[in-house]
């Protein structure tokens, strides 16, 4: 039968489409008998895991093959949409470069010589190695790094039950400074009611490319339906800049000057919410005195934004209050002084009284879930290796400070760390200063990685324990707090394709061999059964299996904390404009402006950012997404490019104090002349991530720097030299 004949047969039948689709997905074609009756088309609701947002989706499954992932309209947080990455989840499942079996290296680390082993062998090896490190260095000699997932807690629990205090997590590379600033001011990190705001100021927080639900969608709606005015500060002309009413290419690192000048105007002209401030806030008098020095003219010098605009924006902002917000942002791993800037924002939001009001900041509502009572272990007794209590006394303890930790571990101080377990994280790609990460890795006696793909870190591991992907997994029910909290359900839509396991089983496998089974003595089903007991409907599990998500009609609720006897989770019980805790710890109790380091002559500040079709470093190898950007480039403004003799698409060398890379130039006016930009997730070592080997790795360029108070990585503090090659 020729191809035309085959197509004649297949047209209208599900099987032909299945094969063609499978081929387009990169799924290996196999000889199949053409079925007479198409397999039933199943619609299975579950939860996406392609990024942090956890949108609800409905998987279309036919004949055991996932054909399409559709949005689930029942989730108010995801506003019934599914983004490019969500749609590309099929490629995560059918990725030929997935790790299909446990593997152990046979050659040197990074040599790429692997042998497939049984789970028993891999788990035995892992437990043996961990025990050996414990024997020699104590349990604190092991490091447990992980990123968020519905199952992450099991991994963290294993590390703790094992006796190690050394957990390090993604917030220290992301939102540590913003979270700490808002926590110290309000006792909690609120959500921003973008949907109902009338005036929004954003420093970076490129929401139209760096998706956070529902803020991204609400921002588009609010600004295009002309309900809200958007003032956007960013050294880059991002897609958010393209939609903003006003975009200012602010001098990087000076956002706090802008904010302090706004405070100066708003307080000086009595435009703040007096009643709110006197009822709920403490430290106003000191604040008012403090900001007198920060005039709009002064700020104009710092920010390179005219004082006329700063004055006008301050007035318009306060006029629109309480439906005005200085959006906090999320990835705040920018500058050494980032924390101060976020504190400035929090204070500004506080004094205009947008707290717990429509169109302002709203403390996150929750839906209670039950908790399975599992046997507790003894807390680790050793102090953390990054010496948080001494170096970053206010930082979130469980998250650690990655860059400080790495310095200490490399130095072997205050004690050696020789075992490293990594879950759902790619430190080699993700942390600034790659050479140091590799140095830390090489010093380890043992490196074990739990991942779904051969990430750069997995490439250098001793053993890889492959996790099943989200489309193959049953996970704990998760509650996503917010203005409208939701409870999402994740159930497998297909059976695991390969010899992979969900994290809980991997943890249980290791735990058994370490005599820690008693702490993980439950199944996922038992865990979930306890969780859903707290939900209000009859047969909650059946409900979740059918709908994939639950949200309560009682939300949104505004003003629940606006009672005079409400105690904020701060030291004084009030919203702390002046922070007592900061004062006691020896930090500035009110944000003091420090100018950013000047860009050295002939160099550029390297800034980072997101694209809507990638999630950090983990998705650049999926063909459907990679097709939008087959390699990363260095964005450089035409003027400096011209003086360096660089034309668009030229090969250039970019060098910093940490290393150098070769990359293609993208000459564009969409960036300040003193900055350059590159996308994250390329220049990978791992040959399995073939499509991401192109371009360059920002991890190789970024220098080690951290925010002074939260310890969060400061990723915009690197200056680079650029030259044509």
């Amino acid at each position: 039968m020729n191809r035309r004949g085959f197509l004649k047969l297949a047209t209208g039948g599900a099987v032909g489409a299945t094969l063609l689709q499978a081929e387009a997905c990169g799924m290996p074609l196999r000889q199949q008998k053409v079925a007479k009756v198409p397999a039933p088309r199943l619609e299975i609701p579950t939860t996406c895991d392609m990024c942090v947002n956890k949108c609800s989706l409905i998987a279309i499954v036919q004949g055991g093959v996932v054909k399409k992932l559709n949005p689930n309209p029942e989730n108010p947080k995801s506003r019934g949409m599914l983004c490019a990455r969500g749609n590309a989840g099929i490629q995560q499942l059918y990725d030929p470069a997935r790790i299909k079996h446990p593997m152990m290296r046979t050659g040197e680390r990074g040599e790429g010589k692997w042998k497939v082993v049984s789970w028993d062998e891999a788990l035995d090896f892992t437990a043996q190695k961990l025990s050996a490190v414990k024997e020699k260095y104590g349990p604190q000699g092991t490091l447990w790094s992980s990123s968020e997932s519905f199952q992450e807690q099991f991994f963290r629990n294993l590390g703790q039950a094992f006796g190690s205090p050394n957990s390090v997590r993604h917030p220290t590379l992301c939102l540590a400074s913003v979270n700490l600033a808002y926590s110290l001011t309000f006792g909690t990190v609120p959500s921003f009611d973008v949907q109902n705001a009338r005036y929004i100021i954003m420093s970076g927080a490129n929401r139209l490319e760096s998706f956070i639900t529902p803020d991204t969608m609400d921002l588009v709606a609010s600004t295009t339906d002309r309900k809200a005015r958007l003032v956007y500060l960013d050294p880059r002309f991002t897609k958010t800049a393209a939609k903003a009413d006003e975009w200012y290419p602010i001098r990087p690192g000076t956002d706090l000057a802008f904010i302090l000048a706004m405070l100066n105007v708003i307080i000086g002209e009595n435009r703040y919410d007096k009643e709110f401030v006197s009822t709920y806030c403490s430290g106003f008098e000191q604040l008012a005195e403090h900001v007198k020095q920060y005039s709009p003219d002064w700020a104009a010098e710092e920010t390179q934004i005219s004082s006329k605009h700063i004055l006008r924006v301050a007035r318009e902002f306060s006029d629109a209050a309480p439906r005005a917000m200085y959006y906090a942002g999320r990835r705040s791993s920018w500058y050494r002084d980032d924390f101060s800037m976020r504190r400035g924002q929090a204070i500004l939001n506080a004094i205009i009284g947008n707290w717990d009001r429509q169109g302002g900041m709203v403390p996150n509502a929750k839906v209670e879930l039950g908790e399975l009572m599992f046997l507790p272990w003894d807390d680790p007794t050793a102090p953390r290796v990054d010496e948080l209590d001494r170096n970053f006394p206010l930082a979130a303890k469980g998250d650690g400070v990655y860059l400080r930790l790495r310095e200490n571990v490399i130095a072997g101080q205050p004690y050696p760390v020789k075992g490293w377990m990594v879950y759902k994280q790619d430190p080699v790609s993700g942390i600034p200063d790659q050479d140091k990460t590799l140095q830390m890795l090489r010093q380890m006696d043992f490196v074990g990685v739990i991942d779904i793909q051969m990430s750069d870190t997995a490439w250098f591991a001793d053993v890889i324990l492959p996790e099943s992907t989200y489309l193959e997994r049953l996970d704990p029910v998760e509650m996503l707090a917010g203005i409208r909290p939701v409870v999402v359900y994740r159930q497998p839509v297909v059976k695991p394709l390969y010899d992979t396991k969900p994290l809980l089983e991997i943890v249980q496998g290791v735990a058994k061999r370490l005599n820690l089974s008693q702490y993980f003595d439950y199944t996922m089903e038992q865990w979930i059964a306890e969780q859903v007991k707290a939900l209000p409907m009859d047969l909650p599990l059946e409900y979740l299996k059918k709908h994939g998500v639950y949200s309560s009609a009682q939300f949104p609720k505004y003003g629940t904390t606006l009672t005079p006897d409400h105690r904020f989770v701060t030291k004084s019980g009030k919203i702390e404009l002046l922070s007592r805790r900061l004062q006691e710890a020896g930090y500035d109790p009110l944000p003091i402006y420090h100018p950013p380091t000047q860009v050295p002559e002939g160099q550029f500040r390297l800034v980072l950012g997101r694209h809507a079709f990638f999630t950090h470093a983990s998705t650049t190898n999926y063909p459907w997404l990679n097709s939008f950007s087959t390699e990363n480039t260095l964005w450089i403004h035409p003027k400096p490019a011209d003086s360096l003799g660089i034309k668009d698409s030229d090969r250039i060398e970019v060098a910093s104090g940490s290393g150098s890379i070769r990359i293609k130039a993208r000459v564009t006016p969409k960036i300040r002349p003193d900055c350059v930009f590159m996308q994250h997730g390329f220049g990978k070592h791992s040959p399995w991530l073939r499509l991401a080997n192109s371009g360059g790795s920002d991890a190789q360029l970024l220098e080690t720097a951290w925010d002074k108070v939260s310890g969060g990585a400061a990723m915009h503090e690197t200056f680079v030299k650029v030259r044509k090659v």
Partner: protein
Amino acid sequence: MTNRPKRYALAIDAKKCIDCKACVVACRAENGVPLGKSRNWINEELRGDWPKLMEVFEPEQCHHCEEPACVRVCPTGASYQRPDGVVAINRSECVGCRYCMIACPYDARFFRDDLGVVEKCDLCARRLDRGELPACVETCPSKVRIFGDLNDPTSEIHQILEKRQYRVKKREAGTGPQIYYLL
């Protein structure tokens, strides 16, 4: 109302488009479109000079014209128009002559080297027949796309085209395109 013919069309509020590519991936996933080709795409235009810059994004795909030139030139009848206005291709009848690709004012069609046939957006006809929206419409984060029956006065697309001004692309080509770009 049931004997009134349907007329499917798309209204696009391009100022809401943030070029996130969700529609492109959704289409690819739904329709098995191979890499290197696309049934839909986003036109980008950067205007101005630093620092006064402007950028617009405009989604596009087959316009499912009222007088489709592609259908007119097709020698085998593979390209046809459904009663509801959707212009589709009967793959088994297509011989890959590509006359339609030349005729289309919008370059909406492409050639499948692997299959020897021409392909384009068919508004996810299979989904329509199941009562679902086209994949691009359903997935869009910014709700750029409004899809529906122009002849149904209660439909969102009918109502929005009554309220708002719009333009179509290449009106002068005379094919009667049915993607309405809201102004």
